[in-house]
């Protein structure tokens, strides 16, 4: 590691010590307590059985809508598609003005300008994936250029991917430096660090990657790109929520969490909200600290919302197809 990164300033001595060089970083990350796999899976499954009904369900649905990062990350994206997605982000259910707008729209860097234009004055964020998303297989200058492209176009949030190859082969310093560099390139934009937990193999690795990202200055840690399976799962999100809670205990800062990929139903979303409340705490139940990376989830939330209010089941004919 070349120089002491700016992110580590203001950290408690134990943590700033960890970022001094590659050896101490490894020592710190491998010194983290191991994750009890059976325990975390049982706890996640146990919380998932909570029954949320009626008024509480309605509250949860509205809260979840406000936390959605409405995402389109397809090779076939066009300006028109991004604009229609932005229209949906502003007013998710055209029939009901009281439905809150979503938190942000998430697009590829070249679509940021279109999204910024379409969302001007709404307060809805524009998130852009960057750093050779989704694989992260490119050189650092290219990744920086990718980030700068997004930020220059007006992105308020940047979703970067970590170099999983480097992480898995134990070159933590390289991953750390990359996050610090991208964070620097982000300027004022919030940085979300995608761990791609589906490729990290173990919960211990998820915990290490979470801490590594937070040490390097991440504003958010995000489970996955949504391009590989498994994407977000409840136990993985549990481990990450524990990490941000422990980080808050250690530093006083609150880092956000964003599960992404595979969350398609209201039932799933509510399970995540329960986990957030129980594992991290109530302070995380805001769009500033918790997001859903999703595209089809929003339609299901809207259908469930209508079912709650109308007293009968709604159908996909009554929501926009995106």
């Amino acid at each position: 590691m070349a120089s002491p990164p700016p992110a580590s300033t203001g950290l408690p001595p134990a943590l700033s010590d960890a970022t001094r060089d590659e050896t101490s970083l490894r020592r710190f990350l491998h010194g983290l307590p191991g994750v009890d796999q059976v325990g975390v899976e049982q706890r996640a499954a146990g919380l998932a059985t909570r029954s949320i009904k009626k008024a509480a369900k309605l509250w949860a649905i509205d809260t979840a809508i406000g936390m959605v990062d409405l995402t389109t990350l397809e090779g076939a994206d066009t300006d028109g598609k991004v604009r229609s997605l932005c229209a949906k982000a502003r007013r998710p259910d055209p029939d009901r003005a009281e439905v809150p707008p979503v938190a942000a729209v998430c697009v590829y860097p070249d679509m940021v300008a279109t999204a910024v234009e379409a969302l001007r004055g709404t307060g809805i964020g524009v998130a852009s994936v960057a750093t050779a998303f989704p694989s992260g297989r490119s050189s650092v200058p290219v990744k920086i250029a990718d980030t700068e492209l997004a930020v220059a176009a007006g992105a308020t949030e940047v979703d970067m991917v970590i170099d999983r190859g480097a992480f898995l082969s134990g070159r933590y310093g390289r991953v750390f430096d990359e996050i610090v560099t991208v964070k620097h390139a982000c300027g004022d934009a919030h940085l979300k660090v995608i761990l791609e937990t589906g490729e990290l193999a173990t919960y211990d690795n998820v915990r290490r990657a979470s801490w590594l990202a937070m040490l390097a200055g991440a504003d958010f840690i995000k489970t996955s790109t949504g391009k590989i399976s498994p994407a977000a799962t409840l136990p993985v999100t549990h481990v990450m929520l524990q990490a941000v809670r422990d980080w808050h205990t250690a530093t006083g800062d609150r880092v956000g969490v964003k599960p992404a990929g595979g969350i398609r139903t209201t039932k799933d979303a509510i399970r995540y909200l329960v986990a957030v409340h129980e594992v991290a705490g109530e302070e995380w139940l805001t769009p500033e600290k918790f997001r859903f990376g999703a595209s089809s989830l929003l339609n299901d939330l809207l259908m469930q919302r209508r079912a709650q209010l109308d007293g009968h089941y709604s159908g996909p004919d009554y929501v926009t197809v995106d």
Partner: protein
Amino acid sequence: MSERLTVAKTYKLYVGGKFPRSESGRSYPVRDAKGGFLANAAQASRKDVREAVVAARKAFGGWSGATAYNRGQVLYRVAELLEGRREQFVAETSAGEGANGKRAQAGVDAAIDRWVWYAGWTDKIATVLGAANPVAGPYFSFSVPEPTGVVGVLAPQASSLLGLVSVLAPAIATGNTVVVVASQDRPLPAITLSEVLATSDVPGGVVNILTGRTAELAPWLASHADVNALDLTGAPESMSAELERSAAGTVKRVLRARPTEPDWTAPPDISRLRAFLETKTVWHPKGT
């Protein structure tokens, strides 16, 4: 040797090609015409209705998109399997409806014949109900019948097999997918039919069969926004008007019930095929 204990069966629902228990965990005893115990049937809840509609919607694209010829072949194959279960159907209908052996046999034969009859209509109905319309201009104008979509069927309460086949077969023959609420007190032939369908070539979700209280399930089916049509044949008479009103809320096509159940043994016509078809008319410029 001790006397053998009979195995009391507890049946399940048929949704999306699978046999789930009711989400509610409930079941209810099915009794024969004299009040003796026959079996337990699952008592579906509104959430089972919801799951069944989701399954039917998912299956609609594939089933309605299949060629009419192919649908016919698939339905013929079902008739073959029905034939193989003939004895079981005879036993179940005669126990449930209290019909004697001969009448029960005749009923099952009629049901199988009815199925074959509707299977034959799959690739002919378009020629009967469709048209090449005469127009005064350089255009072709075609009218073609298309399936309505997901159809909620309240199966006849009295005629548990022949009646069921007479309402179910025409709906799926034209390419609709269905959610059937079986006869409340005589559900066993419907359950056996679901076992037949599960082993046939009919894709999962095309037919979904729920057992339970018709009065409990019908309102949810009638108000569900993703159901396109409703067949009220087996609806309790006191509820028909309210169900129709509720169905109007989401502009469903409704097939009204007569006050008394029709005579199912009468020769069928194509009115039930026509009931769940929409006519699409296409104008097409003629080549020069």
